[in-house]
């Protein structure tokens, strides 16, 4: 039976890689917004989104493209930077080395080294797209190698639970950045300028053409937000992530005869009801930001359920249950 600590490490390795990839996507879209608006204050939204403003201002005098980008990409002191996320992914991989494939470890090891070799020059405007591509490709190579080589026992399920949970959370943040971005200039909502920005949100989630196939004519903030939240086929949509968690958790429990996970399943039910029980128009009217905020805190509680029910579970295993493995 899988070690609780290893289950936790698999869960977090996946979360950190997913976090690094999504942070690169967020920063990429933020770069586009900033270029559109030419307003340096727009970089503040990045800080607000991650609740990092106070911490950032302790060590930085000005909020600028360069300082915020440095803070989120290469700052090793900043726990919410890409380089910290990849470092933490590698530390969890180090704890998991007895379970993960040699190829998974090697790739993370090499990826980690490439990131540490980056310099502030790699964050210059011209080179930045290449730097984000490096991060995204490193994370995607990790995912692909994991898919192709990770032994599919209990740890594999925890890995995917971590990935889906993090991805759902990050997609809500990607949507939320629009809220922060537009807050001071409500007049622009629905304008051509606004639609251009919504497009870049879709592109950063690699969802532009998928969206086009579903909504070939209409292009409105509502349909785009609905697509990212509720579409059941788009790999980064929140609904897809939550449904996959539901399936994965049920499979994990039945295949390995685990009794834990009931609270997590109830929480997932709650999230599915929130997503499916409401139209996107209703969500927008009640306030997208409020919805996303609520959703993010429920996801946080779900992470806590999983930790309590699997990672810190102290019941004696009966003879019958050990036969299951």
């Amino acid at each position, binding site marked *: 039976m899988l*070690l*609780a600590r*290893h289950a936790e490490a698999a869960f977090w390795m996946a979360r950190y890689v997913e976090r690094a990839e999504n942070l690169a996507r967020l920063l990429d879209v933020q770069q586009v917004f900033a270029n559109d608006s030419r307003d340096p204050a727009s970089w503040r939204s990045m800080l607000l989104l991650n609740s990092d403003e106070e911490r950032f201002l302790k060590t930085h005098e000005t909020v600028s493209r360069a300082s915020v980008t440095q803070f989120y990409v290469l700052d090793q002191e900043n726990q919410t930077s890409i380089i910290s996320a990849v470092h933490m992914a590698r530390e969890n991989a180090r*704890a998991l080395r*007895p379970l993960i494939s040699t190829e998974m470890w*090697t790739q993370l*090891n090499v990826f980690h080294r490439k990131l540490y070799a980056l310099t502030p020059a790699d964050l210059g405007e011209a080179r930045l797209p290449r730097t984000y591509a490096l991060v995204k490709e490193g994370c995607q190579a990790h995912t692909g190698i994991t898919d192709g080589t990770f032994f599919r026992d209990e740890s594999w399920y925890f890995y995917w639970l971590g990935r889906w949970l993090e991805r759902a959370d990050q997609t809500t943040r990607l949507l939320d950045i629009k809220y922060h971005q537009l807050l001071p200039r409500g007049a622009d909502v629905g304008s051509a300028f606004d639609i251009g920005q919504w497009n870049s949100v879709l592109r950063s989630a690699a969802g532009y053409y998928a969206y086009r196939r579903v909504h070939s004519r209409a292009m409105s903030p509502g349909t785009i937000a609905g697509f990212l939240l509720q579409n059941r086929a788009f790999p980064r949509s929140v609904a897809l992530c939550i449904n996959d968690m539901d399936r994965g958790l049920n499979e994990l429990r039945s295949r390995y005869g685990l009794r834990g996970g009931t609270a997590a399943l109830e929480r997932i039910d709650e999230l599915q009801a929130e997503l499916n029980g409401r139209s996107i128009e209703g969500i927008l009217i009640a306030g997208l930001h409020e919805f996303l905020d609520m959703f993010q805190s429920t996801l946080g509680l779900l992470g806590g359920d999983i930790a309590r029910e699997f990672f810190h579970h102290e*019941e004696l295993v009966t003879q019958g*249950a050990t036969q299951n493995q």
Partner: protein
Amino acid sequence: MSSKTSRSGLLSNYDSGDYYCELLGSDTTPHSVFDVIERQLSTISEKELRNRAVAAENDMFDLGVTFTVYSEKSAIDRVFPFDLIPRVLSAKEWTEIEAGIKQRVAAINLFLADIYGPQHVLKDGIIPSHLVFGNSNFRKEMQGVKVTNGVYVAICGIDIVRDQAGRFLVLEDNARTPSGVSYVIENRRMMLRAWPELFDGLGVQSVDSYGPRLRQALAESSPGGTNDPHIVLLTPGTYNSAYFEHVFLAREMGIPLVEGRDLTVIDSRVYLRTIAGLRRVDTIYRRIDDDFLDPRVFRKDSILGVPGLMEAYVAGNVQLANGVGTGVADDKAVYAYMPRLIRYYLNQEPILPNVDTHICGEPEGLAFTLANLENLVVKPVGASGGYGVMIGPRSSRAEIEETRAKIIEDPSNFISQPVVGLSVCPTLCDDGIEPRHVDLRPFAVTGRDTWVLPGGLTRVALRKNSLVVNSSQGGGSKDTWVLFPEAGE
């Protein structure tokens, strides 16, 4: 011998000087293995070898075959330097080493069972009691504890050197948590990738069965003899410099790699914290020193260990490999008595002799040592890792006199040995292929019987003229080949 003049290719400028060469032998007695691999060695240029060495090192780094050096700010992964020219042992040489190791391991286990049991060896006056009871590695908690199969030392690493005459000598026993076996296996895998044609047509004995063999041995000594015992490997954690090896061994054995915080003791039984709850553990291959094993019994400040583990061990509910208190058997003072212990317990002559050792606690040993200090290596007993060693020929007058005073003050705390002119092996160095000193650490695994992994870890002192093979002091390693017997051998 003609080999020096007829050599071509890689070894054309190589000269092993006064030392025994592991590939060529000596001028008077050529080594049979060289005839066998000479042709293959000559098919590669030094430049090509250098290219492959660089590629091999990058490979090791990417694969994470590293030890980690932690400083205050960062963790640096270092590759244990690897030299591509192998050290080769003939089947005949290996037969001798293997038999010598098995004999030694048997004596060590009998000695431990005796001193933690009836103590005949002390009553018969074979070894002075103070060397046992006064040893910091002696654990009184082990007195009378019954250890399954009498296997105190399931994993033993014995350091062997070769002198100028080509004789194998035991330098040191490692009966606590010997490390390095992962490099033996990784080095071979690396060699097969980097220089596959060197193996062509040669019968080199495989090293791949170490994991299954160790697991089998541990299962054989599990308490209660369960069919499928739950075995785990206990590591101090990811910050330990040997973490790579712990991962490697857990994978090779297919067992969970656990930390102290993953285990808990309830009613003198050990349990593992799993995603389904607590699951019973039968055997622990622990890579944590005695001192840190159980804060209730040993060091109170240990956060690496498992509170209550000793109580479960003493109750016979869990097997530890290696057992607690085995360090008393690999101490330098006890080492000096090992030939006598082999005769005492096994009624056999030692197959592998010790390096001549003078015990300063005995009058003749003391007199000899004091009269020849400038030519001897003086070692304090009880300490490990070369700490406090004085090498006479390389010490100043003042250092020698300082050591003399210490010996006179407490003679039984010291032993002395002659300086051994360690054998050499051709090694790729900055200026070409040069001789470098090597030693050998074979690994023995004991369950119902003892099995020795063919070969072992060959460590090489990469600095010119250095006799120190430790990785912390410029040491590297080589692949170690044991050839299959040739027809008629």
